């Protein structure tokens, strides 16, 4: 099985800041040359198990999502290590059920790679298109953090 990195942005673009995951994915895709070679970037929307097919061939997965950590809106959080999948199973992410179940289903069918979650604290998740001001301000920071996370996942010992 190939060992590429899969970046998957999840969330609903019709629900304000909840759409930050797919928007981050789109921003990373626009400058894909800044990512490790072989990285795939997917807009996962709010799909559940249908995304299992896109996990095929992924060695590691970076999930981009609106994550409620109780921090001020716009706070960017990177969760890594074995605990982070557990965090997806707790009520942090707006899509915790879908993402946690997706990863569990992937594990059941042979996926054994690492997972990291880059979360951004949402401000406004009511129906509407666009990001709230604090999330808009934090967006470039999140993009940079996602790229950094991609490289550190790609190479376990990055130059510091």
């Amino acid at each position: 099985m190939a060992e590429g990195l899969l970046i998957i942005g999840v969330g609903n673009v019709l629900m304000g800041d909840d759409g930050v995951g797919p928007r981050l994915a789109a921003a990373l895709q626009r400058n894909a040359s800044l990512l490790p070679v072989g990285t795939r970037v997917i807009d996962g929307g709010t799909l559940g198990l249908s995304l299992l097919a896109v996990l095929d061939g992924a060695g590691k997965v970076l999930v981009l999502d609106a994550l409620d950590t109780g921090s001020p809106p716009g706070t960017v959080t990177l969760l890594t290590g074995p605990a982070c999948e557990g965090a997806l199973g707790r009520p942090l992410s707006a899509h915790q059920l879908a993402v946690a179940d997706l990863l569990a289903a992937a594990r059941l069918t042979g996926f054994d790679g690492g997972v990291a979650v880059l979360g951004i604290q949402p401000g406004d998740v009511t129906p509407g298109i666009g990001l709230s001001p604090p999330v808009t301000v934090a967006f470039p920071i999140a993009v940079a953090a996602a790229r950094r996370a991609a490289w550190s996942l790609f190479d376990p010992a990055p130059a510091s």
Partner: protein
Amino acid sequence: MTRIAIDPVTRIEGHLRIEVEVEGGTVRDAWSSGTMFRGLELILRERDPRDAWVFAQRACGVCTTVHALASVRAVENALGITVPPNARRVRNIMAAVQMVHDHVVHFYHLHALDWVDVVSATTADPARAAALARSTSDWPGTVEQFSSVRDRIKRFVDSGQLGPFANGYWGHPAYILPPEANLLLVAHYLEALDWQRDVVRAHAILGGKNPHPQTYVVGGMALRMAPNAPTGLNTATVAQLGEIAQRARAFVGGVLLPDVELVARSYPEWAQLGRGLGNYLTYGDFPEGDGDDPRPYFPGGRVLNRDLSRVLPVDQAHVSEHVARSWYEGEAARHPFDGETRPRYEGPPPPVESLAASNRYSWLKAPRYDDGAVEVGPLARIAVSYASGHGDVVPAVDALLGRLGVGRDALFSTMGRIAARAVETGLLTDRLVAWVADLAAAVAGDDLRVADSTRWEPQTWPAEAKGWGSVEAPRGSLGHWIVIRDGRIANYQLVVPTTWNGSPRDGAGRRGAWEEALVGTPVADLRRPVEVLRTLHSFDPCMACAVHVHDPSAGAGVEVDVI
């Protein structure tokens, strides 16, 4: 008298609150509440109608293609556009793949664990499981395979990372399958996970991009179609579709249908429970003809009072939505063309302990046909097709009922819904093979048109136009209604399957389909009401479809409050 609240109830996605009142071990009354407000109608207003489908397909996490299709059909209907036969063929295949995929995932990954005890499976004898498998189907399943699955599940369960197996009421006395049957079904749960990866490849071929299809367009499909086209529909990609369809048919026939029969045979009392409203509606879908002669494979119609000798017509003009018991302004029932979405929350402040005492108790509106509540979904489609004398449906249903030794009345039940979904999946995979062959012939033919763009430019549109588009989505009848004024969307309303089935009471106090079906359900253990989940899940609820998934205060699984 005790009230139980289950919140949320879907395993994968969704946010839905069900309250049931239990007296003497039986559900006496039920309230269904969608707990988040859905605002797609507001987002679409003033936008270009040709873009509506792109937004609409984001309305729902697990049924993107159906909203895209309903949306382009609504605009086409408003503007008087007839799509070319090739677009109809491609759309049928995409919708059938969606439905087959969804039904298999529903049975194994969203519903089977209401009937199958995963923990019991870890104690099964693999040799006896293999023997059981051989007795139900010629699908391969060796002792080694079952042994390996048992060990894999055991490791998973022992690791504490239960994932999709969390929150099960394992060991509940309502689980009556022997360990070997549990192991067989869990093994197929895993196989179905792998299988569903294969079948969604059809959407990558026809949709241009996975996971969100990009090839819908008002007027047809935005796909290249030519025998030697480098991308899109060509001889090679259609051949791939044919292989996917064949594999889907083999899996459904060899695995899904025998497994559903095994579950139905083991739980005969569930063919008497969860009977519900007894009134069914379907718009009909999968047109095999064009223009004024659509000849839908599943015909539209209504069956009332479980009377399979009579089919009544269905006309969208008779649909209205009540808001008298929902969190919207106003009292009057309105047709979707005149529909309003003016939210006004009147429920108790969170954390909510009970909604049943509230006059208004849901974000879902209450759709009604001729002011009557109906059930939509696979059972409605199968009932209407059966009552219409459908050449494939009648023999398939009769054969299944005959093998199970039950009468037609058994259809109108919790198990009947499951069986109807399986029958539909079997027939659709057969049809899928035929439809792909038909498409292959078209690719080799002379008429390679995939879209009619004569009315693409807004200058060609009337100042005002109204239209509607329907799709038989996996969960049931879906309608989109659009009003176009001066080239922009003036009104847009969706009535989704889960709004029909999960509807709250209407102005006259009549229950919705889930509410009605839950009445009479036995509940052996108030703290573990698996029986309630069985009936509810038999409808394949999709709250992501009717309301958006977001509630930071909700737990990660099913929570039962005895209140």
